[in-house]
């Protein structure tokens, strides 16, 4: 009953005309951002954060807009996968495998509709699971003390790193660089400056929005300058779009299975939507066997990864809202939004700011229906977006980044810092160093250090205190396994070949 009354509160927030309009706007922008090759959900949300704040939106409105963009981008990612064979973002990569062959077989419209419906099923089930599970998990999180939180942060870094990169050392390095950057500024406990070099601009630390926009959006422009916007993919023409009801019905179990597995992948701290789409595709492929025809353009091959990655996107909100630990790159960006809005994610969020959490969950439910309505009948509108040339789009992205950050901080120093992060993002991409752990490090670094220091103060410097409870031992074990397991799993599980020109994103 609690859930129903909370949902009623949420809908009272979400159904206000203003919030509803923001959700619809977010869905629309998100789908466009997701559809554009190269601009994934992380970039889209990162780009819109400063603009959102400059508009002076309150916490709920800002969060609704940005999460609608997040969901929208997860939906939109499939469009360029299917029509251009270029995933809009990494989670949409698996959709290329069957979506593009389907489009080449003259069934682009069917592929788009089936994937749109699968996205809807995945996201809707995940949102329902989020509203059922999150409050329970929030209650468990009350048992967390500083030692448990420290171990939890470690778990987030180890799992995110383990999955985000092929090289564990590089993933760990990215996390450590982020943590190192987080130490810049005034020490929370003593108030003394650290690593500022006497520069007053750095006394407040490095703003994570500056880092996010630089690492995601600005570095993207450098990537395009390097490639001269070249795109070798063959575009497929989209003719009439009809709803293939029979085929949608035939893949119902695929969608349900994939939604469940994708949600679990999303809930695991750090795993995110990429893992969700990969696991669900592999699961359906192994269920279907050789006769399934996976890779040749079958409906299941489109439905599974789309249900999986959209469900994982919803799942990733669970650890973010209940524990303050993001489940994916984009939720790391959303966590930054919450923290900038002076909202501390974690168990107390559900008690302290119910209107924010439940307003958000209700908005997500509404956003799903809006997205279904947009993505099935209006898919042709979004397909038009793919014709925007990169030489117009990317400079536009850069200018929006600049104005957004400048209007937010009013500091040219932050703009320079953003360019620096952009260059760093480009270099990291070249060297296959993941950028999401850097963001996570900047975001969680101070909290991680604070919890370590608090744990040590409580135990009078006894390090064993960090492993003194069942929860902390479990988290430490999971962290070690999360870091080590990919070393072995990578040898066993081989990702299917993706197109050479596919643009992997964090």
């Amino acid at each position: 009953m609690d859930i129903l009354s909370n949902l009623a509160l949420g809908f009272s927030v979400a159904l206000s005309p203003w919030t509803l309009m923001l959700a619809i706007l977010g869905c629309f922008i998100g789908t466009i951002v997701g559809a554009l090759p190269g601009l994934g959900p992380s970039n889209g949300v990162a780009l819109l954060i400063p603009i959102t704040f400059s508009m002076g939106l309150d916490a709920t409105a800002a969060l609704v807009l940005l999460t609608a963009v997040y969901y929208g981008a997860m939906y939109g990612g499939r469009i360029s996968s299917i029509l251009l064979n270029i995933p809009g973002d990494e989670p949409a990569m698996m959709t290329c495998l069957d979506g593009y062959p389907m489009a080449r077989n003259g069934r682009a419209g069917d592929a788009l509709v089936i994937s749109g419906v699968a996205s809807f099923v995945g996201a809707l089930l995940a949102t329902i699971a989020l509203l059922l599970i999150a409050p329970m998990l929030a209650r468990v999180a009350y048992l967390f003390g500083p030692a448990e939180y420290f171990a939890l942060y470690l778990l987030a870094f180890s799992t995110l790193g383990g999955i985000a990169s092929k090289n564990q050392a590089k993933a760990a390095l990215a996390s450590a660089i982020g943590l190192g950057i987080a130490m810049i500024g005034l020490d929370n406990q003593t108030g003394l400056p650290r690593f500022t070099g006497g520069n007053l601009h750095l006394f407040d630390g490095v703003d994570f929005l500056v880092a996010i926009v630089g690492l995601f959006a600005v570095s993207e422009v450098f990537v395009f300058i390097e490639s001269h916007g070249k795109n070798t993919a063959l575009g497929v023409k989209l003719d009439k779009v009809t709803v293939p009801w029979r085929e949608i019905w035939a893949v119902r179990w695929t969608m349900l299975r994939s939604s469940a597995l994708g949600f679990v992948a999303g809930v695991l701290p750090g795993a995110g939507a990429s893992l969700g789409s990969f696991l669900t595709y592999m699961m359906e492929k192994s269920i279907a066997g050789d006769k399934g025809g996976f890779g040749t353009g079958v409906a299941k091959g489109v439905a599974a990864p789309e249900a999986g990655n959209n469900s994982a996107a919803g799942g990733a909100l669970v650890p973010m809202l209940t524990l303050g630990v993001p489940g994916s790159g984009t939720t790391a960006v959303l966590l930054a939004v919450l923290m900038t809005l002076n909202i501390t994610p974690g168990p107390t969020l559900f008690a302290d700011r119910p209107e924010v959490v439940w307003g958000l969950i209700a908005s997500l439910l509404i956003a799903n229906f809006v997205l279904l309505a947009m993505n099935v009948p209006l898919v042709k509108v979004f397909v038009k977006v793919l014709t925007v040339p990169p030489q117009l789009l990317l400079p536009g992205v850069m200018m929006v980044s600049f104005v957004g950050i400048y209007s937010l901080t009013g500091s040219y120093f932050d703009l320079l810092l953003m360019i620096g992060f952009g260059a760093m993002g480009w270099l990291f991409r070249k060297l296959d160093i993941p950028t999401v752990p850097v963001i996570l490090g900047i975001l969680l670094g101070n909290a991680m250090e604070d919890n370590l220091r608090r744990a040590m103060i409580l135990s009078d410097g006894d390090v064993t205190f960090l492993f003194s409870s069942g929860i902390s031992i479990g988290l430490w074990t999971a962290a070690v396994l999360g870091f080590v397991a990919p070393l072995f799993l990578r040898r066993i599980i081989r990702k299917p070949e993706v197109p050479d020109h596919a643009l992997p994103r964090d």
Partner: protein
Amino acid sequence: MDLGHGKGDRIFGVAVLLGAVAYAAAAMQLRTGFMSDPVGSKTFPLLVAGVCAICGAVMVLKPDADPDWPRARTWGALAVAVGVLVGYAYALKPLGFLIPTAIAAGVLSYQIDARPRYALLAGLGLSLGLFALFRFVLGLGLSALPAGLS
């Protein structure tokens, strides 16, 4: 530009090692507070420096295959892009939005696709279009032109 197998990782690994040493040295110089704190303000940064150093060493000893590094000309283009953006950051306040945006967007457009006329139109179009969006739709307080002209 061919840097040889794993040379990129090795060079970066060495840079990380040096950076970690510098970071640790800076951490050692930190002043401690007057409150009793078994960890203090140095320990966590030292741990971070240690992790960085280990990862840097791994990159030096076990580098990945080199990525496709850009040619000298592309390095130049990237340097120009960074220069234009730095200039843009400094110009935005004194010169207003329209002129610096038209120039910066035009240059970036030209760098992505070297068609001068298209770049000119892209610069002008983005400058005017984004100004209208920011000023009139989103309500941001941007000045259009330099203080003396507006």
